[in-house]
């Protein structure tokens, strides 16, 4: 097949682009255990209380001030107030550190009295203690590492160790790109992020495998051809599939992002980033990395 440009030969360019995309995510992740948090963590991870009231009115800055004062008076704790929704029927979201049920009741009663609300207007009422938040963080790390190791073992069995390594590097790449996106745009990270991230682990490696499968097949008949050429050909042969599958998945997930409620949007945004990154890494990185790892591996054993 005639290729428009050389993917494997230009690995340096794609590698540098990837490093730039990943660096923010990697640094933020490493900084986390040292007490520096660059992520916008939701109460799911950080712990805290979040309440959402339907105000039946536009939430003005004045009203936000009133709500913050009311919250402080009822609980003795400072809360931040943001608006959600649009038009003349907006919601007010109050966030604070975790407060107990007595204080939450006090806030709800005060809000009901002051703004003439009913229990129906309490759209959301969430409280997560710091211990539950920390458990979630630990569970997230363990799940991600566990999934990556299991996948690497599976690929090493079905293909070879070097391809397993390449697939896992691609997968970590996609994960770091997602993290970078969250840090740079300060998107709030909640527990759905874990599910989305793990789905991307599976999905991204899925794409790499399609490429590797073709390389494996082409290698059987092309014994004299250099590995780079086989890899290049394989990437182009699977290009149609990679792009078309990415498009169909983006069509359904994208619709949910556009039409869904806010909590579903929080779920689909990381999926979209990961799916795009997954397509990029399987096209531009996976086969090249396999070639690189193969060389290193062979030299050592030569």
């Amino acid at each position, binding site marked *: 097949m005639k290729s428009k440009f050389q993917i494997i030969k230009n690995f340096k360019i794609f590698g540098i682009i990837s490093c730039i995309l990943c660096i923010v995510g990697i640094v933020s992740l490493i900084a986390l255990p040292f007490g520096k948090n660059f992520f916008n963590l939701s109460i799911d991870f950080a712990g805290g209380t979040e309440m959402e009231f339907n105000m039946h009115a536009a939430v003005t800055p004045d009203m936000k001030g009133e709500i913050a004062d009311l919250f402080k008076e009822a609980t003795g704790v400072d809360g931040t107030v943001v608006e959600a929704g649009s038009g003349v029927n907006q919601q007010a979201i109050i966030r604070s550190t975790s407060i107990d049920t007595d204080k939450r009741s006090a806030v709800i009663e005060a809000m009901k009295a002051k703004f003439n609300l009913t229990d129906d207007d*309490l759209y959301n009422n969430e*409280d997560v203690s710091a211990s539950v938040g920390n458990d979630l963080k630990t569970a997230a790390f363990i799940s991600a590492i566990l999934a990556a190791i299991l996948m690497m073992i599976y690929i090493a069995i079905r293909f070879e160790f070097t391809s397993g390594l390449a697939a896992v590097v691609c997968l970590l790449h996609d994960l770091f790109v997602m993290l970078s996106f969250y840090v740079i745009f300060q998107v709030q990270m909640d527990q759905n992020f874990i599910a989305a991230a793990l789905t991307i682990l599976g*999905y991204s490696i899925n794409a790499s495998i399609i490429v590797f499968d073709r390389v494996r097949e082409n290698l059987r008949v092309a014994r004299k051809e250099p590995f780079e050429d086989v890899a290049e050909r394989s990437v182009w042969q699977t290009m149609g599939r990679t792009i078309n599958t990415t498009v169909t998945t983006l069509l359904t997930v994208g619709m949910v992002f556009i039409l869904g409620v806010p909590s579903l949007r929080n779920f689909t945004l990381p999926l979209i980033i990961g799916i795009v990154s997954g397509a990029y890494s399987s096209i531009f990185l996976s086969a090249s990395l396999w070639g690189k790892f193969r060389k290193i591996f062979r030299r050592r054993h030569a």
Partner: protein
Amino acid sequence: MKKSIISFIAVMLVIVLIGIAAIMGFSVGDKTIIPSVFDSENGIRRGLDLVGGSSITFEAQLPDGYDSGNLSKDMETAQEMLRERLTREGFTEASVTLQGDKRLVVEIPNIKNPEDAVKILGATAQLTFTDADGKVWLNGSDVKEAKAQYGRISESSVKEEHYVQMTLTADGQKKFADATQAISSRTDGQNWMAINLDGVAQSQPGVHERIDSDSCIIYGSFNADSAKSLANLINVGQLPFTLDQVELRAVGPQLGSNALRSSFVAALIGIALVAIFMIIIYRLPGFISVIALGFYMVIEAVILSLLKVNLSLPGIAGIILSIGMAVDANVVIFERVKEELRAGKSVKASIDSGFKRAFTAIFDSNITTLIAAAVLFWKGTGTIVGFATTLGLGVIISMFTALTVTHFLLNRMVDFRIKNPKVYGA
């Protein structure tokens, strides 16, 4: 040819019939064989984030020196206490489940403001033993342990039955002797002792004589469950820990119904777009894959209903995501078929070798997604488990439909003598 037309129509008919069964439900007599997807009682249960409601997580605050060997027994007692309180408050649809080893998750559908429930459920239990006038004779600290037992209650009785055995402390034994003496001397109808949790009677055994012993039994018309339940409730008095609310998730009913409606619309539009895309890119095979996608969706709906999956928002995301991914296997196959066609093979040969060669790619790539779903199912909590379930099921069903239904229908197309490679996207 004739045979092919019949089998083609048969497949279409099967899809339509399963589809009707999935939507309307299918029952023989009174017995539901396949619950309808809209039947939230027998089929897919809707999560709290869809119907509105509260999920409250309590954690046992273990004191220093607590013997962790007792934890599972004590958690069972705490669970029984929460169930009793929920029933008393009228939350008959609520559930209490153990999460990890020291957390209990209470889920209450359709509750608007959960704060009262949090207070009532998390309160320290008050166990009292009172007489007909309400005088308190003993409380929880006087009881050492209560156990559900089965056997003959005395040497002279013939039949075996379920009963509750209660062991008292030394102090409790003295109080109990006084109480039983006073109560047994009352007239019939007044000579009973009530066992109360939070001031509400749980059991009212009659007392016929003074009992001066460190153990006594409560008997009469118990079954295994009711005996165990009463024993657990009596043990509430000795719970060595308190329950603290560590997590609360309350969603109003309006937000929930918005979520369900908008995701339904999003799914429909998404599916339509995928169908259009597949037909434009792959022509006839694309059209076949849309039929296979229809088959996939009705099968998925039936299986989700049969498994009574607890569907939450992430679960819906899992379904929609898996629809997008479901066509992946078809894409891999069709790309392969196109290549074979370009290499000059006949349509029939191209389809056969396309399927054969695409198999390893489809198999290996789906296994890795299943690994991710399995880890989420195993390590995740709450709504994440629902997501893992729908994603995992979706991957398995989509692989099955691509390898069977798509293959079968494409072969019928060949039988219909549709052999122009252009129709196959080449």
